[in-house]
């Protein structure tokens, strides 16, 4: 009975047509889709750089690119993936789309600011894209001084300006989310009835608001230093480059949590939905998000154990770093406990969620190795570090992103994706990912440094394995790209709540009407209350 009405029913996609109706939209759902298109583009651009890196590393000699080009490749891979894909990935797409719906609001608190954020990301992206096309940048995504300020002859300024602008996009998104969560909740939607996805985004927004400005001012100082040689980070004038590192990592360590926290939010939704149980220890999971955000600001010095940072500070930062393991472990244990005696179905989003839990656990545990002063000195700047953060960022954040994308695809587009293909690609990605990055743990432990394109022959076998894995991974990423676009036209029509999930976003039609709900929902239950959903399903039939 719902499907029959779909053709005529007005929703946010057919409410208006034309380029202008998209580029000037204030609708958070459309802006979410604009972000989705933008970051997908950057994802494949960053992926192209990664491909070149992996092909170069097939052989021990530098036969594909020169060392200068290689420096540019890993820099542009990092810059693109971190600032233009991972940071906006889940918050700006899925968060933008579903956060207002989950709390029963018509839109974010500041819709025009939301559109402005998207434009800022695009403009920032264009600056960085220009830098890449004009000749690239070779400082590494970390822009360490004094190399970035005094010595590099590449497009540091254009790239940094791009990141500076994109940073404001991130700040404004965070600001918008915080105000929305505080002020726009539907009647009855108390803080402890909010889905954990919303809690995770609240924590993420805190980091965006508190951390990103420090990156902005740091980049501004780097720009001044490079343009006018004012000496803030220049040892020749008595400045200290380690101060740059402090300022940079004050943002960039918590930035890792900007990437992973929203993915954790997605996983909480998926795990609960597909085991048909409320999340075990809801309050603990909610507060662990916030405490990860807070603790994330106290540990940045662990990126600087081999700099001239004092040994005492190193010990303090090392000690504090271990604490991040506590809220992270709370989450993993509570997800597992949720599965216990649940009625589990292995739908595609659930496969991604399982992938997330396994890979995040590995990434997290190897993070403990790196938090330890002594071991870190041994593996600093080796492939061990590379493997560790890819387990978090690719294995964690991207798994979460893809899981969420599949989970909410029916709601966003009104179409189902082909389940068989989706499962196949989830499996391909999981296998390809492990084949790519597990050998890198071993490489790093054996002493292969990162950021080199020439290496001793005994490392070749592991590098070949890694490159082979990367090709599998690339195929895994291409498949969803194809079938998701295919499903827009040919996919099965989606009903309002295909998974029998509990969130408010499932209580409205797929795709949602222009103002999300026909009537403002009134919330009377805790999150993940499956008894009420079952009753509704029985009623609707």
């Amino acid at each position, binding site marked *: 009975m719902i499907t029959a009405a779909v053709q005529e029913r007005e929703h946010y996609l057919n409410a208006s047509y034309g380029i202008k109706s998209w580029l000037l939209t204030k609708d958070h759902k459309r802006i979410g889709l604009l972000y989705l298109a933008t970051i997908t583009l950057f994802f494949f651009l960053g992926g192209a750089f990664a491909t070149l890196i992996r092909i170069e590393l097939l052989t021990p000699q530098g036969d594909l690119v020169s060392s200068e080009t290689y420096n540019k490749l890993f820099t542009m891979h990092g810059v693109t993936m971190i600032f233009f894909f991972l940071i906006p990935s889940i918050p700006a797409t899925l968060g933008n789309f579903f956060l207002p719906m989950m709390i029963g609001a018509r839109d974010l608190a500041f819709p025009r600011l939301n559109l402005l954020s998207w434009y800022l990301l695009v403009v920032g992206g264009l600056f960085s894209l220009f830098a890449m096309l004009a000749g690239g940048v070779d400082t590494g995504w970390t822009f360490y001084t004094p190399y970035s300020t005094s010595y590099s002859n590449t497009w540091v300024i254009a790239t940094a300006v791009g990141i500076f602008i994109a940073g404001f996009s991130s700040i404004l998104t965070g600001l918008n989310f915080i105000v929305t969560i505080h002020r726009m909740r539907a009647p009855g939607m108390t803080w402890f009835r909010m889905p954990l996805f919303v809690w995770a985004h609240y924590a993420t927004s805190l980091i965006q608001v508190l951390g990103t400005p420090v990156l902005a001012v740091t980049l501004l100082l780097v720009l001044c230093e490079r343009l006018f040689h004012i000496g803030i980070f220049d040892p020749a004038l008595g400045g200290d480059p380690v101060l740059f590192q402090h300022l940079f990592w004050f943002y960039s360590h918590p930035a890792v949590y900007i990437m992973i926290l929203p993915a954790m939010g997605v996983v909480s939704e998926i795990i609960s939905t597909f085991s048909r149980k409320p999340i075990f220890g809801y309050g603990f999971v909610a507060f662990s998000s916030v405490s990860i955000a807070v603790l994330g*600001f106290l540990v940045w010095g662990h990126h600087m154990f081999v700099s001239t940072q004092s040994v005492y500070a190193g010990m303090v930062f090392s000690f504090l770093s271990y604490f991040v393991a506590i809220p992270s472990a709370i989450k993993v244990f509570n997800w597992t406990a949720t599965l216990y005696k649940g009625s589990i179905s292995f739908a595609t989003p659930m496969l991604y969620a399982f992938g997330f839990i396994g890979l995040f656990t590995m990434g997290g545990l190897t993070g403990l190795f790196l938090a330890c002063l002594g071991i870190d000195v041994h593996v600093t700047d080796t492939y061990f570090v590379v493997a560790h953060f890819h387990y978090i960022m690719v294995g964690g954040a991207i798994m979460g992103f893809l899981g969420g994308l599949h989970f909410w695809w029916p709601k966003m587009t009104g179409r189902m994706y082909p389940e068989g293909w989706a499962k196949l690609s989830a499996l391909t990605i999981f296998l390809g990912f492990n084949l790519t990055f597990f050998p890198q743990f071993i490489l790093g432990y054996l002493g292969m440094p990162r950021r080199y394109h020439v290496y001793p022959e005994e490392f070749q076998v592991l590098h070949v394995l890694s490159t082979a894995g990367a090709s599998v991974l690339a195929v895994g990423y291409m498949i969803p790209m194809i079938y998701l676009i295919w499903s827009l036209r040919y996919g099965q029509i989606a009903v309002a709540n295909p998974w029998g999930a509990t969130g408010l976003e499932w209580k409205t039609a797929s795709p949602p009407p222009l103002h999300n709900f026909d009537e403002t929902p009134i919330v009377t239950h805790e999150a993940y209350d499956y008894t009420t959903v079952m009753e509704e399903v029985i009623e609707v039939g």
Partner: protein
Amino acid sequence: MSEHIDSVKTYVLVFAALICATLATTAVAFVDLGPFSVVVALAIAVCKMLLVALFFMHVRHSTKLTRLVLLGALMWLGILILMTLTDFSTRGALGVPGR
């Protein structure tokens, strides 16, 4: 948030206090207080900040949330500065050359 309209008299008094504090901080800078001169300067600045925030920015009529936001921001500024000072103030403290 109910509207509180302060009297002009309140604002004039606060304004006068701010001017006096400015003159005081300038005058006291010429006195040799040793390491305490920076403490006094910052203490006066903090007082002025509180006056501006509480009266001109209406924090004294504001919600708990606004105060929490402000307090949080100052705490995070504290984290940034104190944690970095943990490094700079303990260089060489443990006798490791150069660290």
